[in-house]
């Protein structure tokens, strides 16, 4: 078997091992890849910047371990941005795992930036997805009463972070990070009637649909999957997991492309030789 | 759209009428032409291959519960099991829905009974694996590997697991014929399976395989219905273009019949 024939039949296990390597390498050691900041990501950044300080933001967490690599960096970048600008935020989870992940992330970032739980930020905990629509209908009128307690069971009224937050008018921004795609509900129940700005963090597969909402002005910005989070991290000037993971994303794509090219080189040369022999 | 508006209702009724008309005219014995569909012709070849090799086949009816794509998949299953029973070739059917599982079991039982070998039917070959998407996929991967499957048929509605099933099938060297109405999964079948049935060739399958007049008639009726859609679309394109130049031509508003109603 010539080398060109071999190029056409690379063992899949070698390819799998290569894939693992090109993914693990940037994650562990980092890899500098050019990151482009699209207008959609700038929209998210500007929306956070523009939010008045006397209002509060809500970060929706509707994802679990399956899409953690895509959604968690989005949430972490958002949290970091809010804390850097001394703006208050609350996290509301519709996935039990996502609730835990986002709480852990927030605790780490908050200790890094010397913020206090209950004063600068709050985690409202997990609510079953079945409650989404009743909650959407009720909480705009009285946030503290309808949300009730935070993740630790403390009544919200007792937390200083909730001072002055009564109705949806006191909510300055909604950031929806999701692997489910329930954005339409937030648009219908919150953005539609109350004009609360929304920024959106979907997974990569859902991004194409989301551009429609962006065009229509229903959302102010969009973080397309992991890449969006990486661009956001770039704007914040702090390279986090998404920046590394985007390296992995790029390198894995490049690996596929390289393998396809190799296979075709082998194919073309072998065929040409066969033609010459014949 | 929760309720038919008059034009939409008419459109659907016309489509149904065309299909029914063709079904009944075919039943009266009108002969009908159907072009060749290579993927479907390959089914018999795949069954033959498994028979020659003396190894089993696998048929996955997709991930959907009892729905229209699954009904079509089950009628393809019926064709395949009938031949399999004739040649005494084992066919393993992993399912992920109890109701679909039960119907698949009935179909297989009947196929063996009709061939006069009811004792050959092995209830363990029609399996309910799990209604969890990836538990189902992991079970199928296990079956493909352990049973040394010679031919694998993937017909039905598939989601992301399509590539897991097709690529594993390829790795164990099975000959694969696949078809699904889930358009975004077709590329994965094309890259990993030997023959792929594209788009609504899937719904043409039972007509093509059984050559039953009812089904053939229906297929021809579907062609007429598609022709109606093509005519509507071409007319719509001409009219929107005209409306751009002559806004005062009000009769062009017929296009609004199909305007999305907010609800």
């Amino acid at each position, binding site marked *: 078997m010539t080398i060109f024939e071999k190029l056409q039949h690379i063992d899949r296990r070698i390819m799998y091992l290569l894939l693992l390597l090109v993914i693990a390498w940037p994650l562990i050691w980092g890899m500098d890849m050019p990151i482009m900041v699209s207008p959609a990501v700038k929209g998210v950044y500007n929306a956070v910047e523009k939010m008045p300080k006397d209002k509060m933001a809500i970060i929706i967490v509707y994802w679990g371990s399956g899409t953690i690599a895509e959604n968690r960096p989005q949430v972490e970048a958002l949290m970091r941005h809010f804390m850097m600008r001394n703006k208050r935020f609350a996290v509301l989870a519709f996935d039990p795992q996502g609730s835990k992940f986002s709480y852990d992330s927030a605790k780490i970032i908050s200790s890094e930036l010397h913020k206090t739980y209950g004063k600068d930020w709050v985690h409202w905990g997990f609510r079953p997805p079945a409650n989404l629509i009743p909650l959407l209908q009720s909480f705009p009128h009285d946030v503290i009463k309808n949300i009730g307690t935070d993740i630790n069971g403390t009544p919200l009224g007792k937390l200083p972070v909730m001072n002055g937050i009564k109705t949806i008018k006191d909510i300055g921004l909604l950031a929806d990070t999701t692997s489910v795609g329930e954005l339409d509900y937030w648009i219908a129940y919150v953005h539609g009637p109350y004009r609360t700005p929304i920024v959106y963090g979907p997974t990569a597969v859902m991004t194409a649909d989301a551009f429609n909402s962006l065009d229509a002005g229903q959302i102010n910005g969009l973080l397309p999957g992991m890449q969006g989070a990486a661009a956001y991290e770039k704007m914040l000037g702090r390279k986090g*997991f998404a920046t590394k993971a985007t390296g992995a994303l790029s390198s894995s794509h490049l690996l596929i492309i390289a393998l396809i090219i190799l296979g075709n080189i082998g194919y073309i040369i072998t065929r040409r030789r066969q033609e010459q022999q014949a | 759209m929760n309720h038919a508006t008059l034009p939409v209702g008419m459109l659907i009724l016309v489509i149904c009428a065309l299909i029914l008309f063709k079904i009944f005219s075919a039943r009266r014995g009108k002969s009908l032409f159907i072009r060749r569909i290579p993927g479907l012709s390959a089914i018999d070849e795949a069954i033959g291959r498994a028979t020659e090799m003396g190894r089993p086949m696998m048929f996955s009816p997709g991930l959907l519960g009892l729905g229209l794509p699954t009904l079509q998949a089950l009628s393809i299953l019926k064709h395949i099991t009938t031949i399999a029973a004739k040649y005494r070739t084992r066919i393993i059917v992993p399912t992920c829905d109890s109701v679909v599982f039960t119907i698949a079991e009935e179909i297989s039982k009947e196929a063996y009974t009709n061939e006069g070998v009811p004792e050959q039917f092995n209830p363990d070959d029609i399996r309910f694996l799990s209604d969890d998407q990836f538990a189902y996929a992991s079970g199928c991967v296990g079956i493909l590997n352990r049973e040394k499957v010679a031919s694998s048929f993937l017909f039905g509605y598939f989601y992301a697991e399509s590539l897991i099933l097709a690529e594993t099938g390829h790795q164990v060297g099975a000959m694969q014929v696949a078809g699904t109405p889930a358009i975004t999964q077709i*590329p994965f079948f094309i890259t990993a399976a030997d023959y792929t049935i594209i788009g609504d060739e899937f719904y043409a399958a039972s007509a093509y395989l059984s050559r039953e007049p009812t089904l053939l008639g229906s297929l021809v009726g579907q062609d007429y219905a598609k022709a109606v859609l093509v005519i509507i679309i071409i007319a719509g394109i001409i009219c*929107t273009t005209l409306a751009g130049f002559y806004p005062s031509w009000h009769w062009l508003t017929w296009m609004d019949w199909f305007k999305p109603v907010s609800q």
Partner: protein
Amino acid sequence: MNIFHNIGHSFNFANSTVANTWMVWIAAIGTLAIYSVLYKENPVYRLFEHIFIGAASGYSVFVTWTQILKPMWWDKITSGEAYWVFALVGGAMFYFIYSKKHVWISRIIFGTLLGLVSGAAFKGFAGLNVDRIHASFKPIAGHGMPLSESLNNLVFIIVLLAVMSYFFFSFEHKNRVTSMPPKLGRWCLMFAFGAMFGSTVMARMSLLIGRVYFLLGEWLHIIR
């Protein structure tokens, strides 16, 4: 004593950190076991495949009861809507498939379900297609319409019609003229399939990165 105390501590599931450590370890071993099938089917994969199927099925029994049967059936009966007993009668009819003599009774319920599925198809058809038909009415030209939009619409229309022509089954594509559109349609299809494939890669790689992150970060703490 100390050892026993430590063992006792590591099984102290009242502490969520302990339970979490267990979860990460179980998940990590399971993840490696599932990946091992990429090399070759093996006994470890087989074991975890069975555990997975078992646990997923056990979970689905639990979910079926707590999310469907309890709220939609049991709670309704016990709050006075006793006619829901009929649902149990209907459900029991499924089980007649195991009776040789009365198997036809199970078909009553299958038949009814098939009827429900097909009756709902009209609404399904309208809901999916009417908007699409309307969205396909794209003007080729107009006052002040930029050339790029005209070209885009033209491409859209040609591809749409060519693809539809490919799926006409009862016409033989005999001569050059009639065989052109279906052939073009098939090319368009292949091009679209390539695009779909390419656009899915990123989502799948993200998932894989998530898993690798779990192994290296949450389990081994090599990365954060």
